[in-house]
């Protein structure tokens, strides 16, 4: 299996609290994968560790850049990753427009004194079309709904033109329609050869959305293709609860596709 990101014996702790313990996992290239686990399982921490935003106690992180070689340093790794943070980390009353926010994705490529120009502007508008938000380009970001904000965040990650996309809970506070739309976009990205990985909460949709699963509860529980890594036994081990309902496919025995359930579980 070709992997885009590999961690080896990764341990992260905040004082007395261990957030991640000895996690050796991988995110496969050109697939949509989920990072799943109960609250406080270290899902977001895993993303942040990959991005070099939290100090680690031990372990290696290897990020394969777009050219297929391991990134040499943190800056190179960061430039090949498009990161979509949780919506709640942002001040939505900030004085910028939707277009401005998307343009931030291009800032990494800009030099000192350089401002985003016409090319960047077109890229940003194109990305907004991609998420069907082009009509909102001139709006102040606070005037958007939760789902629309999430789509703008996605567009910002697109213009970064990364090979790997890491999303932190993109479906939190998002309506069912938007969720379906985001999933479609993510699958389109995969089909275009990108790697997508997201922190996910809703167990009922895992089989439908994802090719690959990383199941965490501070320690790694399982990491592999959805069929083999996302089984009732593993889920029970991660959540410590018996009789978890995974999704519709458990009842009729078939796998994944064609579930009759509503995707929105918000």
């Amino acid at each position, binding site marked *: 299996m070709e992997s885009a990101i590999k961690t080896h014996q990764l341990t992260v702790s905040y004082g007395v609290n261990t957030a991640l313990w000895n996690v050796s996992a991988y995110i496969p290239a050109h697939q949509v994968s989920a990072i799943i686990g109960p609250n406080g399982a270290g899902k977001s921490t895993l993303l942040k560790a990959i*991005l*070099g*935003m939290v100090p680690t106690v031990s372990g290696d992180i290897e990020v394969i850049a777009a050219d297929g070689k391991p990134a040499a340093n*943190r*800056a190179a*790794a*960061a*430039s090949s*990753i498009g*990161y979509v*943070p949780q919506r709640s*980390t*942002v*001040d939505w009353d*900030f*004085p*910028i*427009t939707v277009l*401005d*926010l998307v343009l*931030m994705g291009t*800032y*990494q490529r*800009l030099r*000192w*004194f*350089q*401002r*985003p120009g016409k090319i960047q502007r077109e890229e940003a508008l194109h990305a907004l079309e991609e998420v069907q938000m082009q009509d909102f380009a001139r709006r*102040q970001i606070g005037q958007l709904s939760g789902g629309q904000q999430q789509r703008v965040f996605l567009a910002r990650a697109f213009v970064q033109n990364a090979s790997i996309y890491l999303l932190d809970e993109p479906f939190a506070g998002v309506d069912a329609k938007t969720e379906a739309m985001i999933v479609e976009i993510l699958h389109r990205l995969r089909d275009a050869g990108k790697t997508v990985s997201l922190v996910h909460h809703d167990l009922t949709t895992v089989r439908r959305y994802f090719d690959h699963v990383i199941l965490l509860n501070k320690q790694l529980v399982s990491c592999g293709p959805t069929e083999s890594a996302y089984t009732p036994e593993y889920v029970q081990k991660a959540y410590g609860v018996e009789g978890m309902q995974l999704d519709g496919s458990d009842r009729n025995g078939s796998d994944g596709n064609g579930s009759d359930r509503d995707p929105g579980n918000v």
Partner: protein
Amino acid sequence: MFELLQDYTVQVVVFGSAVTGGTSGALGCFAYLRRQSLIGDVISHSSLLGIVGFFWLGFLIAGDGIKSLWLLIPGAIVAGLAAMLLTQWITSSTKIKPDAGLGVMLAIFFGSGLTMLRIIQRLSTPIPGHAGLEDYLFGMAAAMTRSDLWMIGLLTVVSFLCVLGSWTRLKILTFDAEYAAGLGLSTRLWEFLMLGLLVIGIVIGLQIVGVVLMVAMLIAPASAARQWTNSLGSMMALAAVIGSACAGAGALISSAKSGMPTGPVIVILLTLVVVISVLLSPGRGVLMRRRSLVH
């Protein structure tokens, strides 16, 4: 008042105040948007220690009381930075909450600054010029000299270049520090630059507004400007205009009439602008929103 404007000293004072107000106002936008207003208050109070301390040092070295901004502003910068770095260190390595950490630093730095000021004033062989230090409490624009003007100009140009050169970075960092870190920006370095700009925005105005009220000159233009625009660039430009106009007008009123310390006059003008903006701005203004609800 028109005759007054022809007076050379008044020209210097009004011009200097306007430039200062503009710079503080523009830089204050970052502080306002990052919710660091009270940090500004603590930095400005703390800088008194640096001002008095460097004045004393200057006397020990040169044997004369030097009140030039070229000596006192570096002092203020040192003390302001020290207070802030200490606060960050304390709040990050203990459970003390930011508000309490800030308050304690204010007490320590401003308390010792004040004590030092009183000691200097009671020295048996007084340092020449020590009386002017008192003006740093509430500001005294009239004390501005031409060489002070150069210092103000230097700080303005430096901060302007910094903002222009790293505009995109500063914007990301202000909007979403987490995303900036995810892009691989060295957060520590940029946070320090941000802090540096904040400190410049404060110390530049100390002579005019004084340490006690400087927070208003930093924050009020930004709060007012925020009501009228939804873009960071125009917000900073507008804040600069508001700060500049109020500071210039305040300095003029203060030199025209006795019993009008510059700092309070400027702050009252600024507060008026904020109140008007909050009530009347289209879209965000409180009164405007009420009306649109009625219709």
